[in-house]
């Protein structure tokens, strides 16, 4: 069986930070990092009882959170670099159900010539029937999970543990930190398409 390990790693600090946001604002849902033989890679997700689950927003909404991260050695110390993310907002009481999704944000640092590095899918169809929005990759900048949380707070009326104003303030502050920590703006070539 998988073992529980508790080294105070930079990934653990990052995961704890994310859990602080989730547990302070929404629910007791818990993100964990999954570690295998690959020394520098981790998956961060809700993983309980041997299965992937979602961050719970009350009884009928949830966010499936999945990041593949790599620990990078920098002159100032170790840093967590997100290699890919998937954030899927769903409207279902079942935290394992990914079928009742409304939108899906995705990002791949390595990129793919067929689609934008960071993009949005929407679960819907154009009125003419010509376009399935879930098949289209609407380009976005790389977004923070705080931006997704703020959207959920402001537009989906999910139950929260603090007032809406306090939640948005906390998320704004955390989002600013996301921009301060990002290295791809300084070190990587501009992302296209």
């Amino acid at each position: 069986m998988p073992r529980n390990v508790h080294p105070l790693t930079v990934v653990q600090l990052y995961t704890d930070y994310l859990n602080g946001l989730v547990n302070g604002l929404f629910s007791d849902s818990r993100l964990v990092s999954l570690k295998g033989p690959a020394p520098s890679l981790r998956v961060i997700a809700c993983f309980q009882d041997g299965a992937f689950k979602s961050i719970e927003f009350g009884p009928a909404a949830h966010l499936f959170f999945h990041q593949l991260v790599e620990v990078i050695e920098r002159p100032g110390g170790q840093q967590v670099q997100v290699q890919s993310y998937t954030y899927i907002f769903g409207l279902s009481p079942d935290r394992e159900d990914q079928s009742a999704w409304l939108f899906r944000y995705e990002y791949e640092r390595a990129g793919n010539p067929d689609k934008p590095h960071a993009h949005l899918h929407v679960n819907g169809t154009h009125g003419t029937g010509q376009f399935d929005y879930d098949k289209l990759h609407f380009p976005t900048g790389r977004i923070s999970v705080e931006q997704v949380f703020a959207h959920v707070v402001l537009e989906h009326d999910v139950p929260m543990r603090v007032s809406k104003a306090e939640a948005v303030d906390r998320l704004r502050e955390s989002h600013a930190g996301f921009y301060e920590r990002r290295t791809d703006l300084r070190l990587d070539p501009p992302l296209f398409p």
Partner: protein
Amino acid sequence: MRAVTAKNTPTEIEFTAEELDQLVDQESLAALGIKGSEFKRRLMAGELPNDNPRVREIIALIKLAA
């Protein structure tokens, strides 16, 4: 389904390569109805749908085992 909360869930869970193989099996069956070995074959052959988030999750698990 009953909502599950997990304040006591550990922050980090370590898997051996064999345990990750089992998880890849489990997730491949749930997502595509195929075994992990077939998932890996299709991955190498470029036969997997590239827009399925479940596929991306499983590929990430395979990377953890590398």
